[in-house]
C-alpha cells in the first residue's frame, strides 16, 4: 500500500517522533527508578553513619561520666555502667547490620574494649568503695580503664571517618554510572533527531517503503525488542538512515545493558545483605524478597512473592511501630492494612517487631522500612529491612541481670556472692549452680542456686571436678561434657542421681590465687557460646573480688580484737595505777601513826609490874599493829602489779619452783601432793615471777584449808576450748575464742568447801574466809589480777567430795 507522500511522510515523521520520545521516556523511567534505588541504598547507608555519630556521642558521655566518678563529682559508678550497656547495645545493633569489613572489625574491637572497660571500671569502683584496699592495683585498673576509653574513642572516630568515606565513594560511583548512561542517552537522542531530520528529507524525496520499514522497526523497538535490525539494501540516504537507525538501536541496547549491569549490581548487594529485605507494592503485596529473609523464615521465594505482607508478621503493628498485643488475628483486610500503614509511615525506624517463620516460630527483628513515593506523594512501594535480634535480646536481658545483681551488692561479701550465684542461675539456667571453695582437705559449697534438698554441702576434695578446675586455673571456662561417662561419675554419686550431663565452671581467684569454682551443671547436653563464657568469667571475677573483701573484713576483725585486748590491758593497768597511787599515799599516812603506836606499846612492855593480862593485851596490840601494816603492804603490792612481761615459759617448771617455796609448810601440815603434769605442754605466755606468786598464793590457800592434812592435787594439760563460758566466747570479758587451744592448770585441795555466796566474792579485794591471823584477804585478788594481766582465766568451784578446785586457763605462747 502506498500512501500519499505527504501523509506518509507526516505519518512516518510522527511515528519516529513518537518512537524517539517513547524510547527516551522509557529509558528515562528506568534510569529514574535506578536512581531511586540507589538513593534508597544510600539512605540505608547513611542511617549507619548516624549510628556511628550516636555511638561516638555515647562514648563521649561514658568518658565524661567516668571522669565525674574519678573526680568524685559523682559518687556511684552505675551511670557509667548504664551508658556502657547502652553503647554495647548500640554496637550489637550496628554489628547486626554491618556492611563493610573494616567497620565490622572495628565494631568487634570496640565491643572488646567496652567489655574490658566495663570489667576494669567495675573493679576500680570496688576499690574506690573499699578505700583503695589494693593500693597499686587500683591505680592500675584506673589506668587500664582510661586507656580502654581512649581506644574506644579512637576506634569510633576512625570508623566514623571510614564509613563516611566509604558511603561518599559508593554514592559517587553509583551516581557516576547513572550519569554515564544519561550521557549515552543524550547522544542517542541527538543522533535520533539528526536521523529523523535526514529521514524527513529523504521522505520528502519519497520512498515510502523503507520508511514503513523504519516505522515497523520503530514500532518493534517501541515494544522493547531491540534485537531486530533493518536490512540495508541500498547505500543511498535511505540505506544510511537505516544504518543510522540500526546504530541507534545498538546504542539503546548498550544503554539498556548498562542499566541491566546496574540492576545486577544492586541485586547482588541485596542478596549479600545479612539483613532481611522485603519490598511490597502499594497494596501491601510482596514483590521482592532477598535470600536472607528466605533463609530466616524458611520459605521459598515463590511462596512469598504475591502474598500479603502480613504473612511474615507474628503480630499486628500499631502506629508507633511497637508490636501490638494482638496475636496474629488472621489475615483480615484490616490487619493487613494496619501493617501496611505502619510500615509505609515515615516513622518506621528501628522498631522491634516479631516475624513468624514458616514453621510458626517467632523471631525478634529490628525493623526499618522506607516508602518510595511518586511525584504526587503517593506510596508506590515500600522496602522493609530487618535484622534478627533474638540473640541480642537475650544478651540484653543477661546484661540487665548482671547489672541488677551488681547494683544490689551490699556490705556483706557472703550475701553478694549469693547474689552472683543467683544471677548465674537465672542467666544460665541448668539443673543447679554452685560456688565451691576449697578449705583444706574439704570442698565446701559456699553458695548455691536451686540446690536439691539433702545435697551435701561438704565433700572430700579427692577427685572432685571443682578441685580440677581450681588446679587447672585456666583463663577460660572449664567445660566437661558427658559427665555420666567421665571419670568423675564414679567418685561423685550426685552425677548419676541427678542425671547430670554437662558441667561449666570458671575458677574463682582471691588475690590471683585460685580458691574456688563457680559452676553450672545441666542434666542435658549443651554447648556454650563465647558470650556465655564471657558472662561466667565476669561473674566469677566478681565472686573473687567479694572473697578478697571478705578476707580484708576478717583482717579488720582480728585487728579490732587485738586493739580491744590492748585497750583492756591499758584500762586494767590504769585502774591499778590509780589504786597504787592511792595506796602509796595511804600507806605513808598509816605507817607513821603505826610507828608511834608500836613504839608506845614497846615502851609500856618495858615498864615493870605488868600483870599477865597486861602483857597479853600488849602482845595483842603488837600483833594487830603488824597486821595493819601487812594489809597496807599487800595493798601496795597488789596495785604495783600493773604490768607483766610475757615470755615463753614452761608452766610445769614454774609449778615446781613454787612447790619448793611452800614445801616446808606442806611437810608441817602432813599434806600429800599428787602431781599429774603433762610433760608435752606447749610454752605459755607468762611472767615467771608473777606466775610463781600466783602458785605460791594458791598453794598456801590450799594448805591453809587443810589444817589437819589432806591431799593437794596439781594437774596440767592442754585442751581445746570447745564450750563457751569461763572466759571463752564472744563477750567483752572473754579472752579466749571458742575452739582455741590453751593450757589448763588445776589445783584441788581436800579441805573445807566454800559457800556459794562466798564463792561469788572470793576474788574481791580484802575478802577472806580465814581468820584475821591467817591472811590479809588480798591473796586471791592479787592472784586474779595477775591472771587477768596474763589474759588468762581463773575459776574456783567446790569439789563434790569436799574441798575446792581452782582452775587456771592460760594462753599458749604464740611463737616469736
Amino acid at each position, binding site marked *: 500500500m502506498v500512501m500519499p507522500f505527504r501523509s506518509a511522510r507526516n505519518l512516518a515523521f510522527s511515528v519516529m517522533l513518537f518512537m524517539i520520545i517513547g524510547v527516551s521516556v522509557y529509558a528515562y523511567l528506568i534510569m529514574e527508578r535506578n536512581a531511586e534505588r540507589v538513593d534508597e541504598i544510600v539512605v540505608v547507608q547513611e542511617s549507619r553513619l548516624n549510628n556511628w555519630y550516636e555511638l561516638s556521642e555515647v562514648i563521649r558521655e561514658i568518658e565524661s561520666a567516668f571522669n565525674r566518678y574519678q573526680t568524685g563529682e559523682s559518687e556511684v559508678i552505675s551511670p557509667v555502667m548504664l551508658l556502657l550497656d547502652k553503647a554495647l547495645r548500640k554496637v550489637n545493633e550496628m554489628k547486626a547490620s554491618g556492611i563493610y569489613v573494616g567497620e565490622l572489625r572495628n565494631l568487634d574491637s570496640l565491643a572488646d574494649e567496652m567489655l574490658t572497660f566495663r570489667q576494669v571500671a567495675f573493679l576500680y569502683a570496688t576499690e574506690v568503695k573499699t578505700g583503695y584496699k589494693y593500693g597499686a592495683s587500683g591505680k592500675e585498673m584506673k589506668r587500664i580503664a582510661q586507656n580502654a576509653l581512649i581506644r574506644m574513642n579512637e576506634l569510633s572516630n576512625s570508623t566514623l571517618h571510614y564509613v563516611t568515606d566509604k558511603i561518599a565513594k559508593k554514592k559517587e560511583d553509583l551516581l557516576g554510572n547513572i550519569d554515564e548512561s544519561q550521557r549515552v542517552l543524550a547522544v542517542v537522542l541527538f543522533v535520533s533527531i539528526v536521523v529523523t531530520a535526514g529521514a524527513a528529507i529523504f521522505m520528502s524525496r519519497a520512498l515510502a517503503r523503507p520508511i514503513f520499514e523504519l516505522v515497523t522497526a520503530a514500532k518493534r523497538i517501541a515494544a522493547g525488542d531491540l534485537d531486530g535490525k533493518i536490512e540495508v539494501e541500498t547505500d543511498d540516504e535511505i540505506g544510511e538512515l537505516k544504518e543510522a537507525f540500526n546504530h541507534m538501536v545498538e546504542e539503546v541496547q548498550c544503554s539498556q545493558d548498562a542499566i541491566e549491569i546496574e540492576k545486577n549490581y544492586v541485586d547482588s548487594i541485596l542478596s549479600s545483605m545479612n539483613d532481611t529485605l522485603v519490598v511490597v507494592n502499594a497494596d501491601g503485596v510482596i514483590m521482592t524478597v532477598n535470600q536472607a529473609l528466605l533463609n530466616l523464615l524458611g520459605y521459598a521465594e515463590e511462596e512469598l512473592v504475591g502474598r500479603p505482607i502480613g504473612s511474615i508478621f507474628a503480630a499486628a503493628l500499631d502506629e508507633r511501630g511497637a508490636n501490638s498485643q494482638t496475636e496474629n488475628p488472621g489475615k483480615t483486610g484490616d490487619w493487613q492494612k494496619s501493617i501496611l500503614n505502619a510500615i509505609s509511615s515515615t516513622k518506621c525506624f528501628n522498631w522491634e517487631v516479631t516475624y513468624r517463620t514458616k514453621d510458626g516460630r517467632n523471631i525478634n527483628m529490628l525493623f526499618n522500612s522506607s516508602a518510595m513515593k511518586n511525584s504526587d506523594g503517593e506510596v508506590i512501594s515500600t522496602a522493609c529491612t530487618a535484622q534478627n535480634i533474638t540473640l541480642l535480646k537475650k544478651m540484653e536481658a543477661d546484661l540487665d541481670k548482671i547489672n541488677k545483681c551488681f547494683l544490689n551488692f551490699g556490705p556483706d561479701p557472703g550475701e553478694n556472692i549469693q547474689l552472683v550465684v543467683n544471677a548465674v542461675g537465672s542467666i544460665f539456667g541448668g539443673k543447679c549452680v554452685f560456688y565451691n571453695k576449697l578449705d583444706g582437705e574439704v570442698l565446701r559449697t559456699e553458695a548455691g542456686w536451686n540446690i536439691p534438698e539433702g545435697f551435701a554441702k561438704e565433700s572430700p576434695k579427692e577427685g572432685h571436678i571443682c578441685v580440677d578446675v581450681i588446679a587447672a586455673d585456666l583463663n577460660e571456662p572449664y567445660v566437661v561434657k558427658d559427665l555420666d561417662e567421665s571419670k568423675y561419675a564414679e567418685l561423685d554419686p550426685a552425677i548419676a542421681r541427678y542425671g547430670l550431663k554437662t558441667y561449666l565452671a570458671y575458677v574463682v581467684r582471691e588475690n590471683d590465687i585460685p580458691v574456688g569454682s563457680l559452676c553450672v551443671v545441666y542434666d542435658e547436653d549443651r554447648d556454650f557460646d563465647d558470650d556465655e563464657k564471657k558472662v561466667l568469667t565476669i561473674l566469677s571475677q566478681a565472686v573473687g573480688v567479694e572473697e578478697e573483701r571478705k578476707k580484708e573484713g576478717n583482717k579488720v576483725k582480728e585487728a579490732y580484737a587485738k586493739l580491744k585486748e590492748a585497750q583492756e590491758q591499758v584500762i586494767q593497768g590504769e585502774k591499778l595505777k590509780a589504786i597504787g597511787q592511792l595506796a602509796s599515799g595511804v600507806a605513808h*599516812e598509816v605507817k607513821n601513826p603505826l610507828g608511834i603506836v*608500836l613504839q608506845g606499846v614497846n615502851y609500856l612492855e618495858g615498864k615493870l609490874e605488868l600483870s599477865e593480862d597486861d602483857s597479853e593485851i600488849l602482845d595483842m596490840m603488837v600483833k594487830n599493829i603488824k597486821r595493819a601494816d601487812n594489809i597496807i603492804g599487800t595493798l601496795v603490792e597488789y596495785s604495783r602489779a600493773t604490768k607483766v612481761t610475757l615470755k615463753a615459759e614452761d608452766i610445769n617448771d614454774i609449778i615446781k619452783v613454787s612447790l619448793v617455796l611452800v614445801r616446808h609448810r606442806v611437810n608441817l601440815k602432813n599434806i600429800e601432793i599428787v602431781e599429774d603434769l603433762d610433760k608435752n605442754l606447749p610454752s605459755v605466755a607468762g611472767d615467771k615471777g608473777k606466775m610463781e606468786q600466783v602458785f605460791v598464793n594458791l598453794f598456801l590457800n590450799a594448805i591453809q584449808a587443810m589444817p589437819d592434812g589432806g591431799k593437794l592435787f596439781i594437774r596440767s594439760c592442754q585442751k581445746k576450748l570447745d564450750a563457751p563460758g569461763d572466759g571463752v566466747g564472744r563477750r567483752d570479758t572473754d579472752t579466749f575464742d571458742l575452739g582455741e587451744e590453751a593450757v589448763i592448770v588445776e589445783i584441788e585441795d581436800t579441805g573445807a568447801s566454800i559457800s556459794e555466796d562466798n564463792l561469788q566474792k572470793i576474788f574481791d579485794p580484802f575478802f577472806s574466809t580465814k581468820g584475821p591471823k591467817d591472811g590479809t584477804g588480798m591473796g586471791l585478788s592479787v592472784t586474779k589480777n595477775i591472771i587477768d594481766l596474763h589474759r588468762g582465766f581463773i575459776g574456783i568451784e567446790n569439789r563434790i567430795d569436799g574441798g575446792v578446785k581452782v582452775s587456771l586457763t592460760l594462753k599458749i605462747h604464740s611463737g616469736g
Partner: protein
Amino acid sequence: MDKKKVMVVDDEQDFLRIVKLNLESAGEYEVLTLSNTKNIVAEVNRFKPDVLLLDLLMPSVGGMEVCEMLNADPVGKRTSIIIVSALEKDKDKLNAYKLGVVDYMVKPVDRKELINKIEMAVRFK
C-alpha cells in the same frame, strides 16, 4: 663508858617523844630529838651524835637533802645515819644507801629491832 649519843630527826613530835623514852629507858643512850631540819648541820656539829635516826618525808628540808648536807660536813660525815621512814619502796631504799646511810628501817619499827640496828651502827662506825 660514855653513853652513846643518838640524834632523832622526825617531824612528828609524838614519835620523837616515844622514841626518846624508849631509848633512854634502855639506859645506854643520850638522846637529842629534832623536829626541824633547818639547822641540822649546826645541831650535829654541836651535839656530835654517834647515830642519827632520820625520817625522809619532812617539811622544808627532806631526809635525802639532810644526808647530802651532812656528807659535805666534816663532823656530819662521821655520823652513822639510819633512815626510819614510812617509805618502803626499793627505789627509796636504794637512793638512801647511795647517800651512805648505814641502815634503812620501815615504820612501824619495833623497839628491840631499833636498838639492835643502833648497836650495829655504833659498832661499825
